[in-house]
């Protein structure tokens, strides 16, 4: 149990930005799928999850500032999201692997927060229901792709392997979040292992983070694709300083 658990203080900026930026950035990535999904049902599902996450991001960012100023006027180094969520969509398997790793984490994290008395409890109680669907979606697709065709199996394995090194950062403690990070990691590993094995895939064997990824996103160190993502996301807003939309 971390010391922070005992002190349900007002929500700190670090905590709101960490969770809010995770949701904002993943929502943006999922939004990039619009019109490009492998089947129409997935256009609906991916947009649905993008909207859930955007709603969470707006609530979280508004707790500590103006949502648009925070989303559109911060530089890359001021974003506190984990590097996992900023990774490009890749093929559908990469998107599903990113969803699996992140939605299991987010569900367990919000589950813990919902059980606390802290300022995030109401948000977490609502979000945990949304995220349960995201997790269900990711798990079902992991099974279908892992245990589908030889090609889908290979693509899914490659995606799990490629994103594995970004998963360690999920469990770096965030200042002001009353979370038992060790229990979170154990629960996550058990859940992910279960799905991966059921899908006839292999849990990646390497370390969950490299020297460069450990806790880096939370400190504002991101990967190259993130800068381009922000350039696209922010350019119109920044082109009209002070305008309302």
């Amino acid at each position, binding site marked *: 149990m971390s010391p922070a658990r005992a002190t349900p203080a007002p929500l700190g900026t670090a905590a709101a930005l960490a969770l809010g930026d995770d949701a*904002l950035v993943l929502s*943006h990535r999922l*939004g*990039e799928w*619009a*019109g*490009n*999904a*492998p*089947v*129409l*049902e*997935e*256009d*609906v599902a991916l*947009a*649905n999850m*993008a*909207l859930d996450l*955007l*709603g969470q*991001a*707006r609530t979280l*960012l508004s707790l500590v500032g103006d*949502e*648009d100023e925070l*989303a*559109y006027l911060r530089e890359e180094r001021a974003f506190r999201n984990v590097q996992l969520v900023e990774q490009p969509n890749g*093929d*559908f398997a990469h998107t599903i692997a990113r969803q699996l790793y992140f939605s299991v984490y987010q569900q367990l994290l919000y589950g813990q927060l919902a059980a606390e008395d802290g300022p995030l409890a109401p948000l977490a109680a609502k979000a945990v229901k949304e995220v349960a669907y995201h997790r269900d979606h990711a798990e079902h697709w992991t*099974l*279908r*792709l892992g*245990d*589908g*065709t030889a*090609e*889908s199996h290979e*693509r899914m394995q490659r995606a799990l392997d490629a994103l594995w090194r970004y998963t360690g950062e999920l469990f770096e403690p965030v200042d002001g979040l009353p979370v038992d990070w060790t229990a979170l990691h154990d629960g996550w590993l058990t859940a992910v292992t279960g799905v991966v094995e059921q899908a006839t895939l292999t849990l990646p064997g390497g370390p969950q983070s490299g020297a460069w990824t450990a806790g880096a996103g939370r400190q504002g160190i991101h990967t190259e694709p993130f800068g381009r993502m922000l350039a*696209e*996301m922010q*350019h*119109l*807003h920044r082109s*009209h300083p*002070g*305008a*309302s*939309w």
Partner: protein
Amino acid sequence: MTTTAPEAGRLEAVFDAAVAADERIEPRDWMPDAYRATLVRQIAQHAHSEIIGMQPEANWITRAPSLRRKAILMAKVQDEAGHGLYLYSAAETLGTSRDELLDKLHAGRQRYSSIFNYPTLTWADVGAIGWLVDGAAITNQVPLCRCSYGPYARAMIRICKEESFHQRQGYELLLALSRGTEAQHAMAQDAVDRWWWPSLMMFGPPDDESSHSAQSMAWKIKRHSNDELRQRFVDICVPQAASLGLTLPDPDLRWNEERGHHDFGPIDWDEFHEVLRGNGPCNDQRISRRRQAHEEGAWVREAAAAYAAKHGEAKA
């Protein structure tokens, strides 16, 4: 199944009587082959328009200038995917499959609305599409809620409710721009200038040149002529443009007391036919993008089918 001539005559009489009495034709009812073919063509074109129409708007999701606008736009594009789903399902009740219809779209053998062959060049285009394109679509589609074919009519009721929401959102987006900075106002005016005439073309060719209209009216698939609907749309838009503080790009547009309608200038039908022939600004881009998404997703659909076959799961 073979049907004897007197039997066919009796079935046709039952069908004609049902249409005459404004009853709904349902999937299991007998219907003339040409009625079925007309509906498949029209519903497929409508479904294809929903999914191709996602592209010009999705073009701005990643650049939406506020989080509120981004949420509205993503929800709208999601609704369009949902409309595509209802419409492909309605077409399936006529004995065709979604895969078959998509193959025809990708092969260029079925159409989608030509309006989506125009590009979305600025953020204001998202508003202009909502106000004008969705507005024109609603004018066309509200009468389809009373279409003689039940599944299509019911799909349209749901779609029209959502479309009218989109239309108001587009109007509200343009209003914010029109009342915003000088640059925002100019952006809104430019978008309306570019989208106005193509929106009027959405009602199709003039009545005397419309090849499918007469039979569709007789079958009560269509309830009003192209020109009637176009006039209705112009009459609705003129006061709305005034409230927006924007002008419509037609020097001939004026109220005609005698007709009780607005007169408007000549439509450039050459442009309409050129776009229809595939020479619009984005025809190739739209269909290539659609084909690419479909081809890149093939391995995913195959995996879902293989998994379902192994595990007895319903197909994804």
